[in-house]
């Protein structure tokens, strides 16, 4: 029998102490971890319940927002400041999963959720370098319709499944961390690693390091933002391609832009090249196409997901057109 100890942390310091030494994992809503445990993909011997840690959503002195890692997805999505000032984040969250899951899932857990690659889950039948480094990757020559076109490696082509993280990437979110050695912050865009030759190492977190909060910097442009998700079903399905975008116009030109892509990469994909292409250019379809092409220049489609390249291009253009027609400034 796989032994499992369970304790509940009272605060961050308590959680870190309880998580020390051995095979412990922090437990939030359990919406991913419990499933992975049942599939014997994750086999912790101890769970440290961190749902009692800060779930506060409070404005910072610099006009941003600090979201406790234990805040539930629904609570963040329905918060009046998020809806008014960071609408892409609300739209991203409510595009994800189902209401029941959003009620349970914590922000910290959403950041750390693992890929839904079917080969990753298939512990009995499939080779997976993420589960067993060096074993091989059956997705590359297999059914890879939902897999990555950007940022993948010969070792792993799996995607990061979170919608929320795509919006957080576009919003320059900052992740607050705490460990036995102290506290630090990491840009959300730097939290997740690309697979390269170690797809089993998914984040820059040290062993036992705890996510305590996510901070949204104060942002004018974020108020003019949206999130669009393209998927096989109209609800309750992961993204094939998704776009989080914000646009600030100066007359007919793009003054500033934020773009991130989901469903296409092993981590939430901040589209820096697209943004650079957009700034200062006329807010037209031609510009938007050029920005998309810049971002997709290094796309490496697989046999099963080549459609994602053009789908990403068209979705990005459509979202930027939508934001332009919204008449933001």
């Amino acid at each position, binding site marked *: 029998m796989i032994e*499992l*100890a*369970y304790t509940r942390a009272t605060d961050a310091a308590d959680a870190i102490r309880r998580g020390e030494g051995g095979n412990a994992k922090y*437990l939030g809503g*359990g919406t991913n971890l419990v499933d992975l445990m049942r599939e014997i993909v994750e086999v912790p011997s101890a769970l440290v319940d961190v749902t009692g840690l800060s779930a506060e959503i409070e404005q910072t002195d610099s006009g941003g927002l600090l979201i406790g890692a234990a805040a539930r997805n*629904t609570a963040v999505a329905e918060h009046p400041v998020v809806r*008014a000032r960071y609408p892409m984040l609300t739209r991203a969250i409510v595009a994800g999963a189902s209401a029941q*899951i959003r*009620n349970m899932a914590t922000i910290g857990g959403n950041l750390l959720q693992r890929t839904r690659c079917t080969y990753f889950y298939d512990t009995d039948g499939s080779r997976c370098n993420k589960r067993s480094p060096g074993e091989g990757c059956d997705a590359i020559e297999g059914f890879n319709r939902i897999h990555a076109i950007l940022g993948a490696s010969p070792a792993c082509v799996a995607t990061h499944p979170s919608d929320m993280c795509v919006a957080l990437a576009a919003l320059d979110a900052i992740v607050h961390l705490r460990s036995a050695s102290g506290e630090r912050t990491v840009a959300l865009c730097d939290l997740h690693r690309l697979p390269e030759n170690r797809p089993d190492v998914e984040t820059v977190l040290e062993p036992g390091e705890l996510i305590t909060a996510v901070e949204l910097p104060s942002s004018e442009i974020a108020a003019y933002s949206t999130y669009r998700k393209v998927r096989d079903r109209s609800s309750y399905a992961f993204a094939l391609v998704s776009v989080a975008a914000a646009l600030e116009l100066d007359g007919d030109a793009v003054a500033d832009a934020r773009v991130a892509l989901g469903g296409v990469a092993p981590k939430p994909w901040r589209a820096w090249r697209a943004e650079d292409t957009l700034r200062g250019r006329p807010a037209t379809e031609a510009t938007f196409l050029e920005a998309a092409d810049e971002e997709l220049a290094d796309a490496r489609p697989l046999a099963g997901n080549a459609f994602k390249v053009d789908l990403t291009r068209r979705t990005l253009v459509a979202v930027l057109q939508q934001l332009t027609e919204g008449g933001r400034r």
Partner: protein
Amino acid sequence: MPIIVNGREVAMPADARVSLLDFVREHLELYGTKKGCNQGACGACTVLVDGERILSCLALAVQYDGREVTTVEGLANGALHPLQEAFIVHDGFQCGYCTPGQICSAVGMAGELARGVPSHVTDDLTATDIALTHDELRERMSGNLCRCGAHNGIVDAITEVYAGPGA
């Protein structure tokens, strides 16, 4: 601390691996809540915790001490819950397997709507008074699958109770 299930205090299981779903079914013999997929994809296991809908298959029972859990068995209060009545009147089920999850989910959904929680199809995110349109209802209930295809009756039942003239 005990878990409170349908108003009754019960001791938590000793084994941390027991899901809230298995706890109510196997330990408490409340078989209304159903195990459809056991992986969070179907919604048949939906129960209410402090009035909020969750998936009991992904919930570990040990996380819920001190919380008030309501299963479908706990909805009737002398008489059937209005939504249970409506499901009968509008033929909102065929095999009945998804039905307890549908009903608990809809009760939770009504609470979220009353609170002004937006959905994927909500146009104006800043609006707090959201109408339960056909599209809103279907989106908000999208976490509950029905393989018999009783959706039309389910929609009619939920509409009558939460969006109709008497709602």
